[in-house]
């Protein structure tokens, strides 16, 4: 089992502090869901951990080992699904699978994942938003990262794919820890082990749907 610790995370934009001294600990086997209203800093939180936005301060440790200079990308133990599509549009699905995985078993696992055979000869630019999202999650999930940061994995995905993605994320729990943000709260809550809400820059523990109502994320 591996542990990811995030401590002392602070970020300000133009003098306004949007994330205040946040900390989070997750282990492989956990799906942590983070909710928050638009602009609350959910995506920023994930980008700060991943290192693509520079924080005011942050401490990221995996299994107690500090990741120096927040060089999470180079360390390659954390994967990140951004909010917008990141796959090159001029490549075919099969080409990307072969580029991403040199190991034949991994390639097979992706090629034989549900619904991939229907799209494997199509270019990324010709896939629907939902198909792209699904492919991105399947690709990321099969890489060797111990932890995944998923920014809105259910966004623009048709219900059938949502169910497949939820099943897939549940199978990933055996080997990975996941931090997930999404506005599709019912789907996210179904697979969550721990739930948090980011409000006014602080992290609030959520135990049930009513807590989301009480904190103003949902209406009663």
């Amino acid at each position, binding site marked *: 089992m591996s542990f990811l610790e995030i401590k002392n995370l602070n970020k300000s934009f133009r003098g306004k502090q949007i994330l205040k001294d946040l900390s989070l600990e997750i282990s492989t086997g956990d799906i942590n869901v983070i909710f928050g209203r638009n602009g609350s800093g959910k995506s920023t939180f994930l980008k700060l951990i*991943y290192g*693509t936005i520079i924080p005011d301060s942050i401490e990221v440790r995996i299994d107690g080992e500090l990741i120096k200079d927040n*060089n999470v*990308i*180079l*360390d*390659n133990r954390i*994967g*990140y699904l*951004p909010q*917008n*599509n*990141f*796959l*090159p549009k001029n*490549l075919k699905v099969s080409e990307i699978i*072969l*580029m*991403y995985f*040199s190991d034949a078993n991994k390639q097979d696992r992706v090629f034989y994942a549900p619904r991939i055979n229907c799209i494997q000869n199509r270019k990324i630019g010709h896939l629907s938003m939902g198909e792209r999202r699904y492919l991105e999650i399947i*690709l*990321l999930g099969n*890489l060797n*990262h111990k932890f995944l940061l998923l920014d809105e994995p259910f966004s623009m995905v048709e219900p059938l794919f949502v169910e497949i993605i939820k099943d897939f994320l549940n199978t990933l729990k055996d080997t990975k820890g996941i931090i997930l943000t999404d506005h599709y709260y019912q789907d996210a809550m179904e697979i969550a082990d721990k739930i948090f809400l980011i409000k006014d820059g602080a992290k609030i523990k959520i135990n049930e749907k009513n807590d989301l109502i009480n904190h103003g994320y949902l209406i009663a």
Partner: protein
Amino acid sequence: MLKVIFKYFLDVNLFNFIYSFVLGILFFNYIYIPFIFSTIGTFFGILSFKYFYSNEYYFYHNLGFTELRLNMTVLFFNVFISIFVFAIYYLVK
């Protein structure tokens, strides 16, 4: 992984080649095209990729490639290509 780096190399140099060719013809001399290719052409090629395809960096990040590492690789190969082209040119000349 080489294929992945090569993809970035091609994408950046598609812009780079256009800029180098146009600049070489317009302002300098075609002999200087390799020099432009390995200097300001590379710089503007990277900037163009960042402008048009910034989200595709995550394609590389998830495999452990930082922007710095990708850009240094492109720069290294472009300098090598330029020196090679200059060498061939002077040998033939």
